């Protein structure tokens, strides 16, 4: 506890340096802008900006990338409220009540509640992160290769079973990611694997190239469809961006409940912001005295999911910083940034890079304050981004993605690989295959194989070492339970659908 206090005070000293403030402001500003572009989520935004930060000092670069992440989450509500389209997937629940509120002339109140909820949840979430991350990192120092193998397998299982509607598709995505991670020279034997005789593949497939293709380039497909389908209905903000006392009285408890739900969901690998928002919304509807208002413009329906999404962001950083395991697609991309700068996130981070880790956490307090300013008085200004024709935006995204990928290693080959992953991302979207498990597989593949082989080296090839410790056995058992539960839940859903169809047929 005392070490955390000392750490955060030290971090505040770093986060308040002019350069840190500038990069944090740049991050939250860019994140807010990206959140106003329907369809472009935080993963795509971070992926697009990642090449620009290469060569920068890691600490301010990571402050900026983290700022983009929580800035995106903060501002995702604006498009949800004004154009009935979530700025990112996590804002999907905000649409349900935010847009009806805007249609009733309460757009200003909905935007203000979303901003204040995000600020409170973000600040409480960072406080929890401050005091949870270090003890967890100290505990994780006791992990050996078998425990790490089990933990990473658990993370991969969670993300593949909980994202998307199909267990098989989640598994295909994660195994494809793991297969991509095996391309290149094997570090232990020094032999190339699966390079198909292409010299450029000997170094492996660059993570950044996969991310830009899968998240940024593939989103262009969605934008082309939006352009062809015509313009979106935009509700203009009229009057003051603030709420009434009654609205605040109803929203405040929802914010606190949403924060709790969000932080715990964020700290569980694989759940992500969308699930936290859904759980917070459902929980809020259950406890509300006016459940009939949900979906018609209930202020709690904006406050709870917005709080959950922002607290989830902080929870996701607990895993990333303390264990070196991403908790969502976006944190997987940020983890890629850590690795790109030559820094391995995980329990040793607090000892090897205390300035960076505490500076990063402290910058989140500052960034949250900046976002409150950006999202309250300046919300009308940012909303103007919505009027930029999508035809121009998609061409600019292609331009940024291309120059970014090339600049990373000065390689045209990487551009072709990014284009290939852009096509893969488009196919994934059309076939409802989740992208996050693939990114998890790519980012964790090398480390999970290393832990697997180290464990077997320690035991002289005896695989029982993988379940030798209670922690490793427990995590593997949990992973198995996740698969069985997911299989059962999806089977039940299919049976329910069949009964529904049969009932509908009889009625017809």
């Amino acid at each position: 506890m005392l070490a955390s206090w000392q750490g955060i005070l030290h971090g505040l000293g770093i986060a308040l340096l002019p350069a840190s403030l500038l990069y944090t402001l740049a991050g939250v500003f860019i994140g807010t802008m990206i959140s106003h572009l329907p369809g472009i989520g935080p993963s795509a935004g971070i992926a697009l900006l990642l090449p620009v930060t290469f060569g920068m000092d890691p600490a301010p670069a990571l402050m900026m990338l983290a700022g983009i992440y929580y800035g995106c989450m903060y501002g995702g509500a604006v498009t949800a409220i004004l154009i009935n389209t979530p700025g990112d997937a996590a804002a999907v629940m905000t649409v349900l009540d935010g847009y009806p509120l805007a249609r009733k002339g309460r757009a200003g109140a909905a935007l203000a509640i979303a901003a204040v909820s995000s600020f409170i949840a973000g600040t409480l979430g960072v406080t929890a992160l401050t005091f949870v991350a270090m003890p967890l990192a100290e505990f994780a120092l006791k992990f050996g290769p078998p425990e790490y193998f089990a933990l990473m397998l658990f993370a991969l299982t969670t993300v593949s079973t909980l994202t998307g509607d199909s267990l098989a598709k989640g598994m295909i995505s994660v195994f494809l990611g793991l297969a991509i991670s095996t391309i290149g020279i094997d570090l232990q034997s020094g032999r190339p694997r699966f390079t198909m005789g292409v010299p450029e593949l000997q170094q492996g497939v660059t993570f950044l190239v996969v991310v830009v293709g899968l998240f940024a380039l593939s989103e262009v497909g969605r934008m082309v469809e939006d352009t062809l389908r015509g313009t979106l209905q935009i509700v203009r903000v009229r009057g003051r961006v603030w709420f009434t006392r009654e609205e605040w009285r109803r929203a405040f408890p929802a914010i606190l409940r949403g924060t709790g739900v969000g932080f715990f969901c964020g700290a569980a690998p694989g759940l992500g912001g969308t699930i936290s928002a859904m759980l917070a919304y459902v929980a809020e509807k259950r406890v509300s005295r006016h459940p009939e208002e949900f979906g018609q413009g209930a202020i709690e329906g904006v406050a709870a999911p917005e709080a959950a999404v922002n607290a989830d962001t902080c929870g996701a950083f607990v895993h990333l910083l303390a264990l070196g395991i991403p908790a969502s697609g976006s944190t997987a991309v940020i983890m890629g940034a850590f690795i790109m700068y030559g820094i391995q996130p995980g329990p040793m981070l607090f000892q090897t890079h205390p300035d960076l880790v505490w500076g990063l956490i402290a910058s989140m307090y500052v960034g949250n304050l900046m976002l409150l300013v950006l999202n309250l008085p300046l919300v009308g200004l940012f909303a103007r981004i919505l009027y930029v024709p999508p035809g121009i935006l998609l061409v600019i995204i292609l331009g940024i993605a291309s120059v970014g990928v090339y600049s990373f290693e000065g390689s045209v080959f990487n551009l072709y690989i990014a284009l290939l992953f852009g096509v893969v991302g488009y196919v994934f979207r059309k076939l409802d295959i989740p992208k996050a498990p693939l990114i998890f597989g790519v980012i964790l593949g090398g480390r999970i194989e290393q832990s697997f082989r180290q464990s077997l080296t320690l035991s002289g090839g005896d695989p029982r070492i993988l379940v030798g410790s209670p922690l490793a056995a427990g995590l593997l058992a949990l992973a198995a339970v996740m698969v069985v539960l997911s299989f059962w839940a999806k089977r039940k859903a299919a049976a329910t659908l069949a009964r529904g169809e049969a009932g509908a047929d009889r009625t017809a």
Partner: protein
Amino acid sequence: MGDVVLGVGVIMGAAVYLYADANLPALQNGGPMGPQAFPALIGIGLLVSGLLLFGETWRRRRAAAVAVPADPIERQSRRILAAMTAWTALYYFAFERAGYVVATVVYMFALLAFFNRGRWWVNAACAAGFTLAAYLLFTAFLQVALPRGILDF
């Protein structure tokens, strides 16, 4: 239909991956199980996933056999995206040969001419403005060399 094709593709891909893994040279210095063991587990995982997808597809078909009508916008967007992919591949081919500035201005202007029709001056300004801003950002600020191509004088 899409899921069946996906399942077949995954199983075939897994078979190719496992075949390539089995043909990796066996080594003594790659740990007790060598560099083949982990990829073998991945290949088996992919095979199982493909088979599981067949199971899920079969169950869903029994549950609901609702034909989704073809979306004309979807078909049109597919044609546009195929053309954009080919145009982007051509742009990447010209990236070093023609140089970043020339290739990017031509690439962006052509796309803008299609997606933002009729606004020639705005499109030209966007294509040239973006390209020059990106060139200056990367070469002057980030110290990254971008190819000059035919403008290398």
